[in-house]
């Protein structure tokens, strides 16, 4: 079976004034469907950059990143936006819910761009909130929720469109240990039970241990590809 993500000789160079910063250096990587990958590495090693390129919000300087047969870098900005809506679910460190919207409405946001009717949207949103265990909080605003609950709403928003990939950049970075465990268990369940492909950046080895596979980056290079025992 062809991998869902195929990265070939990917390099990303940032120009910072006179100096070129090589954030990613000639990386090649395959991620099969249904995988749960943790990206680890010291600060500045290029974890977020790699994640952003796979998620179609950044572009490689050289090389290619093909997601389910589509070379992401070849899409125009407008095509890319629509592609993200269909294929990517984002989970951020700082949750990034829209403060003026309820949990329900936040989860509904990505569906507003699809052709679904209001009742179809409602069904999808309720199912997603059910999955993260927050159906009873759907009319709460973000400020009425705990950090862990906010992040679970964000996960519901990420999966409501049934995307190809869920990308999470330090999803537990702003959470206490208990909430972090809840969120990680949720991701594990999504991967194991719903077959979601998840790529998660983390600093925390305990978080990384929840993944099927851990990748280490250092100075923009991929170090080793170790299978973690489940």
């Amino acid at each position, binding site marked *: 079976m062809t991998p869902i993500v195929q990265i070939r000789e990917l390099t990303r160079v940032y120009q910072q004034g006179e100096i070129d910063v090589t954030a990613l250096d000639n990386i090649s990587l395959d991620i099969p469907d249904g995988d749960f990958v943790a990206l680890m590495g010291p600060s500045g090693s290029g974890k977020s950059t790699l994640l*952003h390129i796979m*998620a179609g*919000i*950044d572009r490689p300087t050289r090389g290619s990143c093909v997601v389910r047969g589509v070379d992401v870098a070849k899409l125009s*900005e*407008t095509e890319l*936006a*629509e592609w*993200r*809506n*269909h294929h*990517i679910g*984002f989970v*951020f460190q700082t949750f*990034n819910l*829209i*403060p*003026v*919207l309820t949990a*329900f*409405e936040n989860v*509904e*946001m*990505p569906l*507003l*761009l699809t052709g679904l009717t*209001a009742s179809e949207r409602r069904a999808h949103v309720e199912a997603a909130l059910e999955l993260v265990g927050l159906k009873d909080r759907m009319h709460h605003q973000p400020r009425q929720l705990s950090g862990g609950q906010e992040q679970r709403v964000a996960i519901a*928003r990420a999966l409501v469109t049934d995307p190809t990939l869920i990308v999470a950049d330090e999803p537990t970075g702003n959470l206490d240990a208990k909430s972090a465990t809840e969120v990680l268990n949720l991701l594990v369940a999504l991967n194991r039970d719903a077959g979601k492909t998840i790529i998660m950046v983390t600093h925390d080895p305990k978080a990384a241990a929840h993944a099927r596979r851990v990748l280490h980056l250092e100075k923009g290079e991929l170090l080793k590809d170790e299978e973690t025992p489940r």
Partner: protein
Amino acid sequence: MTIAGFILRNALRNKRRLTLTILSVSLSLFLFTTLQTALRELTQPPSTSDSALRLITRHRVSLANVLPEKYQYRIQQVPGVEVVSKFTWFGGIYQDEKNFFPQFAVEPEKIFRIFTEAKVDPLELDAFIKERTACIVGIKTMERFGWKIGDRITLRGTIWDCNPELVIRGVYREGIDETNLFFHHDYFNELMNDLGVTGTFWLRVRDEAAVQPVIDAIDASFRNSDAETKTETERAFQLGFVSMFGNIKMLIGSISTVIVFTMVLVTASTMSMAIRERMRELAVLKAIGFNGRQVFSLILAESFGLAMAGGLLGCVGAWALFSNIDVYKATQGFFIKFDVTPHILASGLLLAGLLGAISCIAPAWASIRMSVVTGLKETD
């Protein structure tokens, strides 16, 4: 939720900002509407088909120069002229200077054949014509001073050295300026010891085709005389009169421009603040699939909505206010009418709409061009 609901939620997120923006836009547009209405009232005297048939003959040099009474016979002979009346601005004071209203010495039996639009009770008109010291007054001035038919009033002359003592015998309404007082030119002449002059002649011609030939004929007839004449239509006459206020049009125009400019600054700064504090949210929207055009539409709709809300409040507020207060009384007779026309309303609202669009373009453009990754790094 719908996209429209989302836009509304964004607009309402900061109540203080919302209130202040709407208030400042609505105040500005209220002022704009008021100024435009004032400008229109000053520069566009009513033009009915009757008024198109009215001509004024005056001294060629200026309105301050008078004409000999006897010109009337020659004017009357000009083909196409139906009626002609002596017509002298009296400009007297009734009790106090602030009680200003226009007064004219006219020929009573002719004046309402010239101002055909005005409505007068035939019995009152008859009484006005028959009594040498009678006068007839527009309804607005009657109401302003609480006068009744039979009341006696004295005008103190300022331009003319005499004080007519008049008795009100009639009231006219509608059609023409309802503030005038008309009294007998003969009585005026008698008080002036048979001076034999008139300020102007007002005449009515047979039909519109006669207007230009009559103008040409009258002015030609007095060329090279001691007092050459200038004959013009009522409309041209009133427009010339308005220019005596100085360049009011330019003044009002420049005030309006300043208002509009201030509004653009206010809304633009509000919108740019609103957008800047939301950079990260906009980046999130883009991450979850909104494209540049859609994000731009969200911002544009919000800005447009805010400006339109303010615009509606200001323009419709002005309209409601001026159609419910007696502007004639409130301005002590300076403005007779104060109609906020559909045209003025529409231009005010158009202005508000444009304002909403223009003021968000720069910040919206900046937020669209910013990459998602940069936007996500923004802190609140």
